[in-house]
C-alpha cells in the first residue's frame, strides 16, 4: 500500500508503471487520475487545495486499508496533491490491483467515492476576474457512498 499527500506534481506514467510491475499475482490493474478542469462557470486561473495535514494521511490510509481488505487486493495506491494547481494539472490518482477485473474496478470506484467526501481536502476556484469560490460538495457525492 502506498499513500502520498504532497504539494509536488507526480509522474502518472512512472507511478503506473511501478505499481503495475510491483503487483505480484494480480491479473487486473485499474488506475484513476483526476485532472483540474476549467471551472464550469467562467475561466479559472488557479485551484487552491487546502487540507488538514494531521488527518489527511491517516484518513487516506484507513480508506486504502478498507479497500484492500474488502476486495482482497494485491495492492492499492493513493496520491493526492494540495496547494496551488492550474487547469490541466493532475491533482490525484488511485490505483488498485486484483486477480480479477471486477474487484479492481469496484475498489477504485470505492476509493474515489470516499476520497470525494471523506478525505479532508477543500478546493477553492480562483477565477480570471479575481473572484474566488469554495467548491461546494455535491449531493451526488454523498449519495455515491451509499452503495458501498
Amino acid at each position: 500500500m502506498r499513500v502520498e499527500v504532497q504539494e509536488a506534481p507526480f509522474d502518472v506514467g512512472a507511478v503506473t508503471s511501478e505499481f503495475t510491475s510491483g503487483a505480484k499475482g494480480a491479473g487486473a490493474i485499474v488506475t484513476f487520475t483526476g485532472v483540474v478542469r476549467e471551472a464550469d462557470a467562467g475561466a479559472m486561473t488557479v485551484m487552491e487545495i487546502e487540507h488538514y495535514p494531521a488527518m489527511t494521511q491517516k484518513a487516506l490510509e484507513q480508506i486504502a486499508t478498507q479497500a484492500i481488505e474488502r476486495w482482497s487486493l494485491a495492492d492499492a495506491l493513493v496520491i493526492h496533491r494540495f496547494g496551488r494547481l492550474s487547469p490541466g494539472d493532475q491533482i490525484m490518482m488511485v490505483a488498485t490491483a486484483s486477480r480479477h477485473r471486477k474487484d479492481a474496478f469496484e475498489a477504485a470506484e470505492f476509493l474515489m467515492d470516499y476520497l470525494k467526501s471523506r478525505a479532508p481536502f477543500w478546493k477553492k476556484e480562483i477565477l480570471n476576474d479575481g473572484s474566488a469560490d469554495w467548491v461546494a460538495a455535491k449531493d451526488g457525492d454523498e449519495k455515491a457512498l451509499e452503495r458501498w
Partner: protein
Amino acid sequence: MDVLYFAWVRERIGLPREKVETSANTVMELVEELKSREERYAAAFADISALRVALDQELSEFDAPLEGVREVAFFPPMTGG
C-alpha cells in the same frame, strides 16, 4: 484544547487554529460557547448542517462527548478527489 478551522470556516472566523479553555461536555456545547463569543463565530456556525467536525482527526458528530479530546476541527463538507 486545540480548535482548528478549515476552508470558509477558517476564513469567516479569521484564524486557522486557537487554544480554547472550555468545560463543554459535547461538540454542540462548544459550538454554543464559541457562537456567544463574537459575531464572526456566530456567522461561521450559523448553519450546523453545512459543517462537519473531527475529534482528534477522526470524523465525528456534533452530539459527541469531548472528554479526553485534544483536537477539535470544524470544516465544510470535504471536496477531495
